[in-house]
């Protein structure tokens, strides 16, 4: 039998909004004071905060439900509850850092969203191996098609990027970049498998991108003043041109 909470969690967020009272009903005006107090006020604030955490975790799990190996109501209920509990613990550790620059609910939601998203990704990959591999340069396409010019330019750029990865990056940088940006391994899953963290891997990828862009700019594949927003995977610039 599906619990009331379980049923709510299987509803789309818009449906939840239609069937549930606003989460702010009866919540403290000053969350930080209430949560930092003691007695009945604190207990009421903790319950209200947990409701917020459950709501945000359910929202996130709903968004990512197609990634779940088992999206049955009972499993979803467990995932949401665990994420909400862990997020609440994380939030309470950071409570002293809340400065009121946003609404408290917005600040609180982000903890549950982060936790639930991380949990779903971990479940999605729990039985999948993460292969840390180098790029196989032999299999980067050479003259792949006799098709339109842009297709040829795309293959040309792909070869140039692969070459730059081989010459400009360390083996660790290549493997992280391939796992995250070619094979699509989620960053927190890779961090867990490597005993690393999201910050460190993102920094690695940031450095990879910077080095590749510098090399390809020097070689004329990217315009000198190009920015991320106008990056075209099939740029008009070709090798040797500026």
């Amino acid at each position, binding site marked *: 039998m599906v619990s009331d909470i379980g049923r709510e969690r299987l509803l789309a967020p818009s449906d939840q909004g239609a069937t549930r009272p606003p989460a702010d009903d009866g919540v403290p005006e000053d969350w930080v004071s209430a949560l930092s107090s003691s007695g009945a006020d604190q207990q009421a604030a903790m319950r209200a905060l947990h409701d917020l955490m459950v709501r945000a975790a359910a929202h996130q799990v709903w968004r990512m439900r197609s990634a779940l190996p088992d999206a049955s109501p009972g499993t979803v209920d467990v995932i949401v509850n665990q994420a909400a509990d862990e997020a609440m613990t994380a939030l309470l550790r950071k409570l002293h850092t809340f400065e009121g620059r946003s609404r408290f609910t917005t600040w609180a939601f982000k903890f549950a969203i982060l936790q639930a998203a991380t949990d779903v990704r971990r479940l999605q990959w729990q039985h999948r191996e993460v292969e840390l591999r180098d790029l196989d340069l032999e*299999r980067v396409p050479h003259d792949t098609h006799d098709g339109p010019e842009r297709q040829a330019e795309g293959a040309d750029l792909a070869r140039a990027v692969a070459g730059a990865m081989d010459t400009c990056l360390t083996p660790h940088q290549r493997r992280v970049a391939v796992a995250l940006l070619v094979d699509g391994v989620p960053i927190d899953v890779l961090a867990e498998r490597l005993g690393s963290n999201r910050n460190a891997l*993102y920094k690695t990828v940031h450095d990879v991108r910077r080095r590749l862009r510098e090399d390809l700019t020097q070689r004329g594949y990217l315009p000198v003043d190009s920015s991320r927003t106008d990056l075209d995977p099939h740029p008009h610039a070709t090798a040797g041109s500026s």
Partner: protein
Amino acid sequence: MTPPPTPPHVLPPGAVAALLLDTTPYLSCDECFERMDTHVEAVLDEPGHHDLAMDRHLVGCAACAEEAQSLIALCAGH
């Protein structure tokens, strides 16, 4: 004519674009998380809101981008 299937271990166009993103100015995932609530409220209050460091981080980090989009959706319906 159907194009031949892409063999594994190559760089598809999406991967090339992802590898060449300009993610400067640098912003860590932790810094993105710290700013996310104020950023989301600014985006909701002012649809043209622009924060270069956040914008570039969110384009370059799929996980943070999903979480920011999710927070926007949740707050928009809240």
